[in-house]
């Protein structure tokens, strides 16, 4: 069976060229970069080369790049690290309701330790109003952390505008760029951020490696203590293959960005969205129509539930995801979909199709062919099809 991967926001395949670049560092140049001997020094060279590539992509200095084990660690490091290091200055953090759990749960950890967190609301497109950031800043605020683009609905936030406000207030500014780095152009000085989180496996690099851009002079406490690696900022023997892989992935992404890859993906995405909206009734596009990630299509299909769509798509060879609770192990549907104002029963019917560099026009045609049938089949099973009137909101039981 044909297999079509449309879940690139969840993870991407590791590019074949990336794997090739990593290979020698498994079995030949396998030294510890901290070792003085040639095995160590050849690994060291590779790590520093990778660091330079990342720095170049985002307009930073190589010494401002700290490797981590992924986007989640980068977020934890930035948020907890700034909090611990600057608690004498203040105990207030500003973030948004639609951040990734890596950010939200880091904030919640800090709330248990005496910090106060403001979770900013978003509008129906998932956009944060920079003015809200301004209003939320107090004399106690030490950090603002707002994601560059949302992983579920794809909305790209006005980071540059927020950056100006935060800079004026003399506060640290972090952005979770896991969904944007390598996919849209990024320049840390243009965005005005002090910290920026990157994850390898979202841009055709390996899983288990990421980076935090850390502006020179930023006062931060380590998340992971131990050896003197990463200039004393992140302990642990360097994941050399991972770093080399991330470096290569970034290099390839830079080329794609320069080569107009974004336009190609946007065109496919728009064809997909339009095709669905044209063919199927009672659907809603989540997120913003233009301020969105190139590959992201997120649509709610009323009267049915997300997981059942995913299973049907999977049986037809299409990999997708949903903001339905059932796919996450939690009970509630996606906090992002609730934050943009969707009622739970509609949030459960979301389908996220995220396109990548290897998706083709044929892939889109295929999905546009099978999806209407799947929706029809599931709606035939639904007690609500045609209207939500059957939903006895007050009589249904909690379990």
């Amino acid at each position: 069976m044909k297999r079509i991967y449309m879940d690139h926001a969840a993870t991407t395949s590791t590019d074949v060229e990336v794997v090739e670049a990593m290979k020698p560092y498994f079995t030949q140049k396998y030294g510890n970069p901290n070792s003085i001997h040639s095995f160590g020094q050849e690994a060291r060279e590779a790590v520093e080369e990778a660091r330079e590539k990342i720095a170049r992509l985002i307009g930073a200095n190589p010494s401002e790049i700290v490797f981590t084990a992924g986007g989640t660690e980068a977020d934890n490091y930035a948020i907890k690290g700034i909090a611990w290091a600057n608690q004498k200055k203040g105990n207030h953090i500003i973030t948004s309701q639609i951040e990734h759990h890596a950010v939200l749960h880091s904030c919640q950890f800090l709330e248990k330790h005496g910090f106060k967190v403001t979770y900013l609301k978003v509008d129906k497109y998932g956009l944060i109003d920079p003015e809200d950031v301004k209003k939320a800043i107090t004399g106690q605020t030490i950090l603002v952390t707002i994601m560059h683009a949302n992983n579920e609905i794809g909305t790209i936030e006005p980071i540059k505008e927020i950056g100006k406000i935060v800079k004026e207030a003399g506060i640290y500014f972090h952005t979770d760029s896991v969904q944007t780095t390598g996919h849209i152009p990024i320049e840390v000085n243009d965005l005005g951020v002090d910290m920026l989180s990157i994850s390898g496996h979202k841009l055709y690099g390996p899983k288990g490696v990421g980076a935090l851009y850390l502006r020179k002079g930023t006062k931060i406490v380590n998340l992971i203590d131990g050896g003197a690696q990463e200039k004393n900022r992140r302990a642990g023997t360097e994941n050399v293959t991972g770093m080399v892989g991330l470096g290569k992935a970034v290099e390839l992404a830079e080329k794609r960005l320069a080569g107009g890859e974004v336009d190609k993906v946007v065109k496919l995405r728009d064809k997909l969205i339009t095709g669905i909206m044209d063919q199927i009734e009672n659907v809603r596009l989540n997120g913003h129509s233009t301020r969105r990630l190139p590959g992201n299509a997120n649509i709610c299909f009323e009267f049915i539930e997300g997981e059942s769509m995913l299973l049907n798509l999977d049986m037809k060879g299409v990999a997708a995801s949903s903001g339905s609770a059932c796919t996450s192990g939690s009970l509630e549907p996606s906090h992002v979909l609730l934050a943009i104002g969707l009622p739970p029963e509609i949030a459960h019917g979301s389908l996220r199709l995220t396109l990548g560099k290897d998706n083709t026009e044929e892939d889109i045609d295929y999905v546009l062919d099978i999806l209407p049938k799947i929706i029809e089949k599931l709606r035939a099973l639904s007690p609500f099809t045609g209207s939500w009137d059957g939903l006895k909101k007050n009589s249904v039981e909690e379990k």
Partner: protein
Amino acid sequence: MSIYSEKVMEHFQNPRNVGEIKDADGIGEVGNPICGDIMKIYIKVKDDKIVDCKFKTFGCGAAIATSSMVTEMVKGKNIDEALKISNKAVAEALGGLPAIKMHCSNLAADGLSKAIEDYKQKIKIKK
């Protein structure tokens, strides 16, 4: 490879007894829009025996498969036997469910019980 057993997937793909019974003797509804699972079970009863059972379900794979399975299990049973069917028994009949699905999405037997209660209530009123 799937998060579900083959049996679950089989019922999910080919759910039995989908639909409503217009002149049902009992209707049970369980679930919760927050959790994303709502099941409606319809029964037709004759001489204390369940002669027909249909369902409509809004929910995940487990919710749909358990609904389908319970309608199969109940047919031909008398009411007392039917009330003994537990959510656990339905899950077992499907070859098990993933741990996270055991609570929220495994309510079909409860739906059936509610339908039977509804039937009993109606009988009482008639009498």
